[in-house]
């Protein structure tokens, strides 16, 4: 995890929160799968790095976890968003959109516009 840049770390946490927000309680594999589906290769290798991150989010109180049964009746640990997590997601989405909008405006600007 150390090797990954911090931005990616932050985005991964945000993706976990968003996934749980969209799909409700999920087990680790499910979260990994969804992120892979949406973001492509960010989790293509080292899906395992997800688990320390989940523990960190749980310590921070953004998500909660409990044992449950999966669709095919396997025992699995399910993660769900807490109230605090929902609030965090909202705040971070807003921040992220703001940042993205500013960056986008920078990228779209042309030399003529500035003269």
């Amino acid at each position: 995890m150390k090797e990954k840049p911090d931005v990616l770390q932050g985005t991964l946490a945000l993706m976990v929160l968003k996934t749980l927000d969209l799909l409700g309680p999920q087990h680790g594999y499910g979260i990994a799968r969804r992120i892979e589906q949406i973001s492509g290769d960010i989790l293509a290798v080292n899906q395992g790095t997800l688990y320390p991150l989940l523990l960190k989010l749980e310590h921070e109180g953004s998500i909660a976890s409990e044992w449950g049964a999966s669709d095919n009746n396997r025992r699995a640990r399910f993660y769900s968003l807490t109230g605090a997590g929902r609030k965090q997601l909202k705040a971070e989405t807003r921040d992220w959109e703001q940042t993205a909008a500013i960056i986008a405006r920078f990228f779209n600007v042309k030399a003529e516009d500035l003269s």
Partner: protein
Amino acid sequence: MKFLRRFFIRLSNLAAGQSADQRLQEEIAEHLAFQTEENLRAGMSPAEARRQAALKLGSSQAIREHHHAEQSLPFIENLFFDLRYAVRMLLRSPGFALIAISTIALGIGATTAIYSVIDATLMHPLPYPNPAELVRIQNDLPGVGAQDVGISVPEWRDLESSGIFQSVSVSGAGADVNLTGSAQPERLSYKHVTPNYFAVFGIEAQLGRTFDPHDATPGFNLEAVISDGLWKREFGADSHIIGKALLLDNDEYHVVGVMPPGFRDLGSTSEERNTEVWLGAGMAGLPFPPPLRGTRLQSRTVARLKPGLSIVAAQSHLDALVRSLKKQYPAEYPAQAAWAVRLTSLSESVVGSVRQSLILLFGAVGLVLLISCVNVANLLLARASLRGREIAVRQALGAQRTRLIRQFLVESLLLFLLGGIAGFAILFCTQHFLLLLVPESLPHMNEISINWGVLAFALAVSVAAGTVFGLAPAWLISRFDLISTLRQEGRGSSGSRERSRARQILVVSELALSLVLMVAAGLLLRSFWDLFQVQPGFNPDRVTAIQTWLPGPNDPATDIYRTATQESILLHEILRRSRTLPGVEEAAIGDVAAFPLGHSHPRPLPLIREGIETMDNQAPVIDGLIVSPEYFHVLGMPLLRGRLFSDQDIEDTPQVAVINQAAARMYWPGKDGKGEDPVGKRVRLHLDAREPLNSARSAWTTIVGVIADARTESLADAAIPQIYRSVYQHPAKDLDVFLRGQLEPGAILAQERSQIQSIDAQLPVFHAETLDNVLSESLSVKRFSMEMVAFFAATALLLAGLGIYGTISYVVNEQRREIAIRLALGAQKGAILTMILRRGLGLVAAGAGLGVVGALIVSHLMAGLLFGVSPNDLTTFAGVTLVLTTVALAASYIPALRAMRLDPITTLHSE
């Protein structure tokens, strides 16, 4: 918030030893199962499906590590591991641990002990609120060489209204008063103070009140504030004490307040510090002289500066005030006298005298600490070479270098902390014994205590020393050359060049530091020896002094010992009766200033020589003492010229005086420098508080004799000009009876008391002391610092010896093979011995060279503490260097001998 929540959860997990590993493993197993199923569905073979799933997940070991790191606090966890490992390592080599810990305990214990003294004296000199605002104001007349001449009432009022100070208080210098009315007349230390005195310090009474700062009574306001000690001792802590009458020197005062237990008056003399009664007085009415600008009171002036005003700024305001006053009153402040007012911080005036000694001690003890730390660093390095293989193996297994450094650092910190705690514990247990070694003349001696602050100091020093002296060895150790260490296989690692150089540097610095300490101790020893050997000029042998005080009531009319004639009847009777006591051969009387090497220094008096000076303010000053005619004989001070005064020189006959040789030399030098005969010359001594307070000018005094110089004021000062006058012409209130003979100090006090009180039952008689005792007491602070420094120097020598022994042994051990080969090839045993000794000598030469340079610097810094010895004293330097060299060579001789006796065959076989 989130961060804190996470931190506390992790901390509690760590504390509870809770692991999430089981849960993670299950989750991983599930994850793999899900992925495998998925892969199977995608058409992979079962084996391939499992393999791809595992690949996608990544290294499960790494995940577990990261997961665990997230679950708990790895930093603290590792610290515990290191600590546990360090404890195990120490237990495995108890000899090393014991030596290292006791070395550190010695260094830190000694440093902490001196720190506790400094904490009580230099760092908290004034137990009052905002002590930095408190200043002492001193009037000097540098033009005539007079210092601290006291302040006059108009000057005091000028200062009060100057706007520089919040408040200015004037107090007497502290004196004694007889408390009568109780079973045994008691003598108390009292101080007359202006009513704002306590307001200046900012201290309130615990019972009743202090004086009203705005009280404008010119003389004594007949109010008394008493100390907590007196209240408990004499009045049984009577809660109705307020308003009760106190009979002091036959005057009646009313108690208005009791000071809190911690309040202690400041002062440079023990009498002053033990003040038990404060009397309020405006200092401007009877019995004080009329408040004229030229009439200076024998006083001490303490003031509180306006908040935020620095002493320097206040001094410059004050200088401006002095200039304008000089212009306004040219007659009172003649230009020759060069009147000046000086501000000093009050703390400086309390502890200034011992600061140098204490700083020297702290420096010395700091050096001991440094040497002991260096020694331990050396031991750590030596041990590291024994652990070379362990370190190499750990590195080979992938231990990071920072991790290794951290572990060694934890080990050395553990050692230093244990040493520090041991040192503190020893200090704590022996504090009562150690306090006996501290001289009583040290200010605030009663406040020295081993408290939390001192413990914090000990721990802080331990941690700092452990970090500094652990880091260097840890750094060097972690730089082991992996390959060569492992390749050498049990051949005993030859260690890197770097490390052996580091050890040599450590030993050289140890030797240099010890040399510095030993030179300091040697110089102190020599100057102390000289002081001890100095001829004091008086003979203290078999002389006992006993003190008594005559009352001095405010109204002179009620004083039955007002005139010299009245007093002389009493004194003659005291002397007559004293001589009848068993064992007493001779008896004499003198005032407190005449008590040799006592706490009270004589007040300097202006000396007006007939035909030379015309005004008080222009006159040079001389120390005046008042004695009975027998004094010179009892104290063995020989007459050189003229005559002594006798019982026939009384109040009605012409005034006579005897001066010492120093005064004759200084004030009657003659035209050709050969010296003029002062006998028969006439002088006038003014500003003398002991004179009856009337406006009549004192008559001329004729000098009748010259006595030899005696060091009665300070052993270190050769000759101070003095003038002696007869007690039968100048009555004194504060008296000492000097008795020569074979006397029992315990019994003589009671005998003398019964004799004196059978003449006047109101007189207190107290404090018998032999002059021999006084003489040795007067050297106590100097002796204390000398003994301590000598002890530290001896410790340093021992440690340096051990250090060089260790290093040379190590060198021999390292070169075992080389020596064995040389011996096998036919080298002479003597040559081997010389080779090893030369190594030792090289180290000593380097250490001594550096040490001499350091010692020269230090000895010049401490020049003020030396007496009769030059800071570059060649004998001391040479002697100390010789001792150090001898010890170091002796310490290297043992391992050299071992090298010489090496058996080449067994050595080479075993390698």
